[in-house]
C-alpha cells in the first residue's frame, strides 16, 4: 500500500479499534495511539518528500497513486502530494494529535466523540492527499458532516442552533462547489478529448473563458465559505464558540484551511484567467474579512468569540494573499495557513483548559490567572504574541511575507488595499494585549482561584507540541518555505503564462 493511502487507512483502523474496545479509558488510549502513529507517519512523509526532492525528483506531485474508480466518468481514486499538501498534512496530524490530548476529559459518550473526531480528521487527510476533484469533494463533505454531531452533542451554549447553522452553511458551500466541479469537469477537454477530474490533467488545458467566468466564482466562494470569506463567515463565530475544545481546535486549525487550500488548488490553479479578471471583487471582500474580523474581536467578551473573530481575520488574510497571485504572497499564504492552524489550535486548547478550571469564558469574570496557573498563562501569552505577529514566532514570518508579496503589485488598487489590510496587525495587537491584560495580569478575580492546579500532563503534551512548532517556524522558516517554494513554482508558472506582472 502506498504511503498516502495509509493516511486514510490508519484513521479508519483507529475508528474500528475504538468501536471494538469496551473500556472507556481504553478508548482514548486507542485514539491517542492511532493519531500518534499518524503523526509519526507524517514525519516520515516529510522526510521522504524532502529527500526525494533533494535527490532531484522534480515531478509536480510525488507518491502518486492512481486507481480507476468509475471508469465511464473517468473518476479515479488519485492521490499525490507536493510540498504544500505535505505541509498541510503535517499540520493536520499535529493538530489532531494535540486535539486528542486536549479532549482527554470528555466523559459523555466518549466512544462516539472520538469516532466522530477521527472521522472528521479522515476527511481532512483525504482532502489534502487527493488530486482528483471527485475524491476531493467526497472527503470535503466527509469532513464537514461529523461537525454537526460534534457540536450538537458535546457543545455548549446555543449548540443546536450553531451546529445547524454551521452544517447548513458549509453544505451550502459544498453545493456551489459541486456545481463548480461539474463545470470544470465538462470543460476539461475543450479539444474534445477525454473529460477528466484529475487536477494535474486539467491544469494542462485551458478551460474556455466563458466557463471560467461562470465557475471560478462558484468554486472560489464554495471554498471561501469554509475559509470565512466575508459575508459568508457568520457560521464561524457561532460554530467555534459552541464547539467542544478539540473540535474548535480542529475546525479553526485545520478545517478552515481546507477553504484556503481548495481555493488555491482548484479555483485559482485551474482557472487562473478568470481569477485574474475577477480577483478584485474577492480582494475587496477578503480585505473586509481581515479588518472586520479584527474589529469584531475587539468588542467580544467571550474568549472563544474573540478567537473565532480573530480566525476570520487571519483566514481572510490567507485568501487575500492567494488572490495576489504572485509567488511571495502565495508562499506567505501557505505559511499563514500553517501558522494560524497551530496558533489557533493552541488558543482553543488553552481556552478549553481555562474553562475547565474557571467554568466561564467571559474575560471580565476572570483575572490574575498568571499568579495561580503560570504554565497555562505563559502558553496563552505565547499564543497571543504569535497571533499579533511578534518576530521569532510563526505569525511574523507569515504576515511579513504576505504583505511584501501583496505590495509587489505596482498598481494603486492593490497597494491601497494592502495598506488597509496591514492595519489589521495593529488591531490584532489591541485585542490580544487587552485580553492578556484583563485575563492574566492584575489581582485574582476570585478567591477560588487559589485552589487551581496548573496544567496536567496531557494538557502539557498538547500545548508544548503546538508551541514548539510555532516557535520552530518562526525561528527557522526557510525549512518550510523552501519546501513550499519549489512546489509553488509550477503553479506560479501556469499563472504567469497568462498573467505577467
Amino acid at each position, binding site marked *: 500500500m502506498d504511503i498516502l493511502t495509509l493516511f486514510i487507512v490508519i484513521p479508519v483502523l483507529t475508528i474500528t479499534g475504538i468501536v471494538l474496545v469496551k473500556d472507556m479509558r481504553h478508548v482514548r488510549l486507542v485514539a491517542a495511539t492511532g493519531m500518534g502513529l499518524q503523526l509519526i507517519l507524517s514525519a516520515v512523509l516529510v522526510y521522504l518528500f524532502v529527500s526525494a526532492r533533494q535527490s532531484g525528483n522534480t515531478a509536480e506531485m510525488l507518491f502518486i497513486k492512481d486507481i480507476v*474508480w468509475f471508469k465511464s*466518468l473517468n*473518476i479515479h481514486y488519485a492521490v499525490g502530494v507536493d510540498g504544500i499538501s505535505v505541509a498541510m498534512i503535517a499540520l493536520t496530524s499535529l493538530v489532531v494529535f494535540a486535539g486528542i490530548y486536549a479532549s482527554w476529559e470528555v466523559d459523555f459518550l466518549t466512544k462516539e466523540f472520538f469516532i466522530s473526531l477521527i472521522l472528521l480528521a479522515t476527511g481532512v487527510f483525504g482532502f489534502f492527499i487527493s488530486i482528483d476533484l471527485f475524491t476531493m469533494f467526497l472527503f470535503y*463533505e466527509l469532513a464537514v458532516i461529523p461537525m454537526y454531531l460534534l457540536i450538537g*452533542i458535546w457543545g455548549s451554549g446555543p449548540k443546536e442552533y450553531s451546529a445547524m447553522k454551521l452544517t*447548513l452553511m458549509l453544505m451550502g458551500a459544498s453545493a456551489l462547489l459541486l456545481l463548480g466541479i461539474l*463545470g470544470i469537469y*465538462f470543460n476539461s477537454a475543450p479539444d474534445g478529448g477525454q473529460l477528466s477530474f484529475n487536477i494535474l490533467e486539467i491544469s494542462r488545458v485551458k478551460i474556455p473563458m466563458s466557463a471560467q467566468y*461562470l465557475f471560478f466564482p462558484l468554486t472560489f466562494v464554495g471554498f471561501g465559505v469554509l475559509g470565512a470569506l466575508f459575508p459568508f463567515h457568520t457560521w464561524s463565530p457561532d460554530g467555534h464558540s459552541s464547539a467542544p475544545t478539540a473540535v474548535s481546535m480542529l475546525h479553526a486549525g485545520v478545517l478552515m484551511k481546507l477553504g484556503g487550500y481548495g481555493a488555491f488548488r482548484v479555483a485559482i490553479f485551474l482557472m487562473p484567467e478568470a481569477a485574474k479578471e475577477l480577483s478584485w471583487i474577492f480582494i475587496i471582500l477578503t480585505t473586509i474579512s481581515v479588518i472586520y474580523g479584527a474589529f469584531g474581536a475587539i468588542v467580544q467578551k467571550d474568549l472563544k468569540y474573540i478567537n473565532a473573530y480573530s480566525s476570520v481575520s487571519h483566514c481572510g488574510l490567507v485568501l487575500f494573499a492567494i488572490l495576489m497571485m504572485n509567488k511571495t504572497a502565495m508562499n506567505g499564504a501557505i505559511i499563514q495557513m500553517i501558522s494560524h492552524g497551530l496558533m489557533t489550535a493552541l488558543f482553543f486548547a488553552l481556552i478549553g483548559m481555562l474553562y475547565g478550571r474557571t467554568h466561564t469564558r467571559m474575560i471580565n469574570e476572570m483575572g490574575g490567572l498568571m499568579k495561580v496557573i503560570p504554565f497555562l498563562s505563559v502558553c496563552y501569552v505565547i499564543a497571543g504574541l504569535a497571533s499579533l505577529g511578534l518576530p521569532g514566532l510563526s505569525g511574523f514570518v507569515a504576515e511579513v511575507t504576505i504583505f511584501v508579496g501583496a505590495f509587489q503589485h505596482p498598481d494603486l488598487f492593490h497597494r491601497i488595499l494592502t495598506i488597509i489590510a496591514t492595519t489589521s496587525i495593529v488591531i490584532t495587537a489591541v485585542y490580544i494585549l487587552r485580553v492578556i491584560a484583563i485575563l492574566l495580569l492584575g489581582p485574582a478575580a476570585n478567591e477560588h482561584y487559589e485552589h487551581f492546579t496548573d496544567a496536567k500532563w496531557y494538557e502539557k503534551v498538547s500545548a508544548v507540541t503546538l508551541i514548539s512548532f510555532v516557535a520552530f517556524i518562526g525561528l527557522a522558516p526557510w525549512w518550510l518555505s523552501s519546501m513550499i517554494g519549489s512546489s509553488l513554482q509550477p503553479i506560479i508558472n501556469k499563472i504567469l503564462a497568462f498573467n505577467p506582472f
Partner: protein
Amino acid sequence: MSLTNFLLMRHELLLTVAALLILMAEIFWDPGKKRSINLFSVLLFIVITIIGFLPSPSGTLFGGMYEVSDTRLIMKNILNIGALLVLIQSVTWLNKEENSEKISEYHILLISTLIGMNFMISAGHFLMFYLGLELATIPVAALAAFDRYSNKSAEAGIKLILISALSSGVLLYGLSMIYGTTGTFYFNEIAKLFVNDNLQILGFIFFFAGMAFKISIVPFHLWTADVYEGAPVNITAYLSVISKGAAVFIFIIVLFTIFPVIIASWQKIIYVTAILTMTIGNLFAIRQQNLKRFLAFSSISQAGYILVGFIGGNQLGMASVIYYILVYIFSNLAAFGVVAAISNAKGKENIDEYNGLYQTNPGLSLIMLLGLFSLAGIPPFAGFFGKFFLFTAAAQKGFYILVLIAVMNTIISLYYYLLVVKAMFINKSEAPVEKFRSDFPTRFALGICVAGIVVTGFASIIFEVIKNISFGV
C-alpha cells in the same frame, strides 16, 4: 412460441408460480402453522431473486407486445431486491395476532403487484403497459387498507384507488390521442410515426400527468402524504420505493424510446416539474411531525431529484436514474425499516417521540442515521454517489441552473433530516422509546439495507454495469 421464448418471461412466471404456491399453502396447510407461510414466502422470494440474476437472452414475445432486454432485466432485478426487503421487514408485523388470518393474502397481493410491475416494465405495447399498470396498482390499494380496523387505513385504501382510477383515466385519454394520431399502440411504431404534432404533444402531456400521479410529482402529489400516513408502515415503504421505482423505470423507457422527437417539449415540462417537486416536497417535509408523512414528503422531493436525471435524455441520465433507484431502495427501506420496527414494537411514529433514542436503542438510531444521510446525499454513503451522478447527467447537457436548484434543495433536505438526527442523538427525553430487541427478520433486512448503503457507492462495478445497459435518446 417455443419454450425458450416462453422462458423470457421468467420473472413473471416465477412470481405467478410463487403466488399460486402460497395460495396452495393457505388452503392445505394446518391452520395452526399459518405463520410459517411467512418463512415459505420469503424463501421462495429469495430463490426468485437469485434466479432473476441469471443471464438471459433478449427478445420479444406476443408479436412485440412483450419485450425483454438487459435494461429491463436489471430494472426487474432491482425491484425484486426491494420487494424482498419489504417482505422480510413485514414479517414482524404479520406475525401480530390481528394479522394472523391474513398472512397469505398479504403475500399474494404483494406478489401480484410485482407481477404487474414486471409486465409493465417489459411492455412493448401500450395495452400491455396499461394492463401491468393496473395489476400493479389495484392490489396495492387493498394492501393500503390492510389494517381493517383502522379508519385511516381504510381511508388510505380508498384514496389510493380513487386516485389510481383518476390517473389511469387521464393516462388513457392521453394514450387515445396518441393512438388517434399514429394508429398504433406498439412502442417502436409510435416512435417512428411521432411527429411534432400538437395533438400528439397534448396526448403526451396527459400521459405525463398520468405517470406523474404514480410517481407523485408535484402538482399531482396531493394524495401521497395521506395515503402514506394511513397505510401500514410496510405498505408505505412498498409504495414509496417499489411502486414509485417501477413507475420511474417504465416512464424513462417510454420517454427515451417513444418520445425522442419531442424532447424539447418534455425537457421543458420536466424542468418545471422537477423544480416544483423538489422544492415543495422539501418545504412541506420540514413541518411534518409524523415520520410516515415526513418520509412521504421526503420521497416526493426524491422524485424531483430523479427527474433531474431524466432531463438530459442521455445515456448517463438513464444510468444514474436506475442507479439512484437502487440506492434509494436501500436508503429509504433502512429508514422505513427503523420506523416500522419502532412502530410495531412501541407504536411510536412521531419525531419528538424519538427524542433520546440513541441512549436506549443505539443500533436502530445508527441505522436511521445512515439511511437519512444516504437520502441526503452525504458521503461516503451510496446516496452521495447517486445524487452526484444524477447531477452530472443533467450538467452534461448544460442544465447548470437546474443542478444549482437541485443542490440547494439537498441543503433544505439536509436540514430536516438533521432534525430527526437531532431528536435521536441530541435531544433529551423524559420517556424515550424503551430499549427493545427487534426480531431476526427485521435485523436481517436492516442489515442488508446497511450493507447496500455502504457497498453500492464504493463498488463502482454496480454503476458500470448499469451504465452499460442504459441508452440515451
